[in-house]
């Protein structure tokens, strides 16, 4: 197996962390910050452009261009804000958490470079409420930087979420940060113009911001040599599911799915066969074993009919019923729908219910048509992509595993006969119905 450069996790070995500020600085930490602060903000953005860095949260929008949309303070004389999205909640994704735990100073250094680039004095880091340890590490690291007088007059506030996937959507996150229910806004105006407190705001993901630091250490042009065209640099792939060695792996964009799953992840456990791969978090279209040589970069995954998304790779072997997978994924989006747009609020529930009917062997041919029709009525009809994500995922399962869906209808039962790996899995959305049922075995 070739040696790959460690960029995001540079300076750590064997899963270790750099939590001591002196150790971080001794290994070259804060050089990038000093270099960036000596540059004009426009030059900072130009350096980012040269790196080709694109957003690691899921949308893959060029980071430098995003910053360039934020007006200059003399063009729009309001406070400018940098908001960092640490609300990582996309099923299959657990990279930002490991970044915050292992290289908190590289992440916070990136925040300060970004603040300089958009001429902001105020940084808000919105971290999901379930990340307790991660919050503590950031709090302590931030305090160490404050004592070392590195903040340069910039205030950095850690704001804790309280359990809502939707707050990973940038406008819902801004609403939540303003003290409101986390419901997406209409766009335009975009956050760059009217974001937090209706002021110019850049919203970036943790991995994107952390990568800003090495871009300034090595130079944008040098960073751009890593990876492939349209997808420069490394990516922290979160590998999970039916794979021998799950975990986060930092690899250059453009490696093949085969290399990731088999050479690095050890393949599917013995005696089983690869059935499906969700390549970029549960919101992305599923791929099959036939797609195993797909390259893991933006363009290649679009060409394969999916998306790199959050780079959360979920491996699924032949024990899993794809109707049950659809139910579990749809239950998630149904539970997390904020309720603002009717197609999402109602549609996700319909999708779950029709899938359940098919799984229970009560589905007819018309139900399968109805399922596709409901998905179509969600797609593109809401303020944010949450409902779309459910529809995209479920449509891809039906498309790639049509025969399995058909078999449920033809047989009048699940062909897995109770042996599927997701059999009986209890989603939080089902707890209310489950509550009050005495567990049979007590």
């Amino acid at each position, binding site marked *: 197996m070739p040696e790959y450069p460690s960029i995001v996790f540079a300076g750590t070995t064997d899963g270790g962390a750099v939590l001591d500020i002196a150790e971080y600085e001794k290994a070259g930490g804060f050089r990038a910050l000093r270099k960036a602060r000596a540059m004009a903000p426009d030059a900072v953005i130009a350096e980012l452009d040269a790196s080709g860095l694109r957003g690691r949260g899921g949308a893959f929008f060029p980071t430098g261009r995003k910053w360039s949309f934020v007006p200059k303070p003399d063009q729009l004389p309001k406070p400018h804000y940098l908001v960092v999205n640490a609300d990582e909640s996309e099923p299959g994704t657990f990279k930002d958490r490991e970044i915050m735990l292992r290289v908190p100073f590289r992440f916070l250094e990136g925040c300060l470079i970004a603040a300089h680039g958009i001429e902001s004095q105020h940084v808000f880091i919105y971290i999901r409420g379930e990340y307790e340890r991660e919050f503590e590490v950031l709090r302590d690291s931030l305090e160490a930087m404050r004592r070392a007088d590195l903040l340069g007059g910039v205030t950095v506030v850690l704001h804790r979420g309280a359990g809502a996937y939707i707050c990973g959507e940038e406008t819902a996150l801004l609403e939540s940060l303003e003290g409101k229910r986390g419901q997406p806004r209409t766009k335009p105006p975009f956050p760059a113009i009217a974001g937090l407190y209706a002021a110019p705001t850049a919203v970036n993901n943790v991995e994107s911001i952390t990568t800003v630091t090495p871009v300034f250490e090595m130079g944008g042009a040098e960073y751009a040599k890593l990876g492939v065209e349209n997808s420069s640099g490394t990516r922290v792939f979160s590998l999970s599911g039916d794979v021998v060695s*799950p975990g986060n792996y930092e690899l250059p964009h453009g490696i093949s799915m085969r290399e990731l799953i088999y050479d690095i992840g050890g393949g599917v456990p013995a005696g089983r066969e690869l059935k499906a791969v969700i390549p970029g978090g549960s919101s992305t279209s599923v791929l099959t074993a036939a797609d195993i040589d797909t390259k893991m970069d933006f363009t290649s995954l679009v060409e394969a009919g999916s998306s790199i998304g959050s780079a959360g790779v979920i491996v699924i072997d032949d024990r899993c019923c794809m109707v049950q997978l659809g139910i579990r994924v749809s239950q998630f989006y149904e539970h997390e729908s904020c309720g603002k747009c009717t197609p999402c609020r109602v549609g996700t529930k319909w999708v779950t219910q029709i899938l359940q009917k098919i799984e229970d062997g009560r589905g007819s041919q018309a139900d399968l048509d109805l399922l596709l029709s409901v998905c179509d009525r969600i797609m593109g009809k809401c303020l944010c992509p949450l409902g779309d994500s459910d529809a995209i995922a479920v449509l891809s399962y039906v498309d790639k595993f049509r025969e399995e869906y058909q078999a449920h209808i033809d047989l009048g039962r699940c062909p897995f006969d109770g042996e599927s790996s997701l059999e009986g899995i209890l989603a939080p959305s089902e*707890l209310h119905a489950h509550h009050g049922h005495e567990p049979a075995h007590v």
Partner: protein
Amino acid sequence: MSVASEVQKLKKRYPDPLSAVMPALQVAQAENGGWLSPDAIREVADALDLTPAYCLSIASFYDQYYLEPIGRTHVEVCTNVSCGLAGAQQVVEAFEHELGVSAGSTSEDGAFTLGTIECLGGCGWATVVAVNNRHRLRVQAEDVPGIVEELRGA
């Protein structure tokens, strides 16, 4: 420190004091034994000069604010796809068996609340179980008796 004085400190962190509502609810919840009673909501509302109805509208939106009493130990098992593939349902059932409560309920003595939860962001270390918001990784059904014994002794 009282909730009211804590909230005054929180307000100073933000350009707009309304932004303090989430951390204020968190403080009030911690002070009130882990859940937001009507009185606890009112305390936050008074401290931020908001209506209790507004504060309730926030508390009811987010999963980590509890509007009913919960057990002193809150066990939540992630049952999203990656944990599900790793046997999360067997973990849920093992907790039901050991604790004698069904998922979604609280034991009669108020010691434990058991639930399932959406993705906790630990898919590569499945199954993830949150105990009072602290994550235990790679939990398997056979680990559950030992965990429950430890929690009962704590």
